[in-house]
């Protein structure tokens, strides 16, 4: 994954996480929440912050899958070997984009 992919994943997720966090915690008071039966605690700022990063992670996961599924059939079928590492006699030794089948 290139830095370019990383920012394509993280930035939209950041925007969505900000909105989701604001909406969620406007409706739900973190003090009323419980985690495996234990109250989340009295520190709302901590809950908002952790909540934000939670939303960010979830949204980033979704963005990452979008990126992942965007690969075309040709990209998936592409030979994993570098052209010069392909066995001698392979007709695609000269073509870096080549794929078999």
């Amino acid at each position, binding site marked *: 994954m290139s*830095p*370019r992919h*990383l*920012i394509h994943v993280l*930035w939209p997720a950041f*925007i969505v996480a900000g909105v989701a966090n604001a909406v969620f*915690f*406007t*409706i739900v*008071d973190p003090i009323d929440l419980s985690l495996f039966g234990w109250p989340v605690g009295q*520190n*709302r*700022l*901590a809950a*908002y*912050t952790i909540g934000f990063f939670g939303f960010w992670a979830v949204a980033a996961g979704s963005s990452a899958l979008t990126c992942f599924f965007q690969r075309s059939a040709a990209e998936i079928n592409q030979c994993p070997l570098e052209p010069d590492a392909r066995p001698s006699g392979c007709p695609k030794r000269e073509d870096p984009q080549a794929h078999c089948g």
Partner: protein
Amino acid sequence: MDTRVGAAGDAAGSAADAVEQSLYEIRRKIYPRAVTGNFAAIRWALVFLTQAVFYGLAWLQWNGRQAVLFDIAARKFYIFGLVLWPQDIVYLTVLLILSAYSLFLFTAVAGRLWCGYACPQTVYTEIFLWIERKVEGDRLARMKLDRTATNARKLRLKATKHGLWIALSLWTGFTFVGYFTPIRELFGHVVALSVGPWEAFWMLFYGFATYGNAGWMREQVCKYMCPYARFQGVMFDPDTLVITYDRERGEPRGGRSKSADHKAAGLGDCVDCGICVQVCPTGIDIRNGLQYECIGCAACIDGCNQVMDKVGYPRGLIRYSTEHAVKHHEDRASILRRVLRPRVLLYTGILWIVLIAAAAMLWQRAPFKVDVIRDRVAMAADTGDGTVQNVYRLQIMNTDEAPRSFTIVASGLPDLELSTRDNPVELGGATSRMVPVRIKARPDAATHGSVEIEFRIEGRMQGAADLTPVVIVEKSRFIVP
């Protein structure tokens, strides 16, 4: 990206060839040239105005507390005399609708006014550029400095610049957090180095974002990160005022001697000095037409007007104009007449309707709220004295800042008996309390198993018992086993 530099421009333009690998694409670092003029003056006025409000408002006191405080830890928003609770989310929604429609309206009338003059990205970039200019000098000096090998002077200048940027960023981060947690206490904690970990984290986070966006990312934020920049084009129509290069008047462009009659030589008014490109914070050439990178800052208008003055041509080779006006050679008056077109009138109408509705809602807002919650543990209990008892919890929220007393009355059943620890309930300003209430009634009162009852809560300002109280009626059900 075009960084062509013309005859009257500086020969050092090619210094901008230092190519920098950025996260999005190969980026050529832009060294915007300082510009003065009418639009730059407007932008600076807005920089001062918005920043005076941002840095100052947090310190303003009102009723003995911070005037504007989004106290997320206590889940209460204070905006001058108004206290908003999470239940008031409708006002936040209204605010978002108002902002969106204002943006639509401004964009339809004159394009990216928000981006060019008021967006924090523009405002902070302007301030950061000003610091950069004061420390490193104007465009040529900065390009020269970046070209020279690292030496003591370069290190000193860079350190000064980044030091000032970081100081301003930290202050911005502190102020930002100061809107969410009381700023005076926060300041005390900062001075005593005892800031809570979450506040400290967000101060640094926001400070880092300011430093990164205004110091390093700059036009890339507008080009690649801003959603508005991507869709603003759909709000344009042929009558939208946009920054336009008058191709007909300017072309063919070219250098010329000041004394020559350029029209006789077959030249247009554009002297191809490249100033419009040098001042552009996004590094585009406006002469290639409207581009999505153009943030509408009008720096090229100011720059070009100065050049036109110098060479003695009329101003406005680059100006605010509309597609329609350029095509049909219309004058200013006709452009202004066309501002009042259906699209603009519709946006304005909706904006006013929402604004009036919001004002009416705020005006009608009851100074307290009540939620009735049935006790879930015991649906109904036999008390042993021949009556049935139901327990309720009344969440009373005094949303106003004046202390109030609340009288609870229940009705809906014959011989109903209401008991609570204290009635009336006394509540201080902007506080809430959960009041347990027991209702007893005869079991034969309800035949259907459950019957609707009403709680009537009368709120009175303390010390004003004779005034008509504000009344809220909430319904619930009484269950007979």
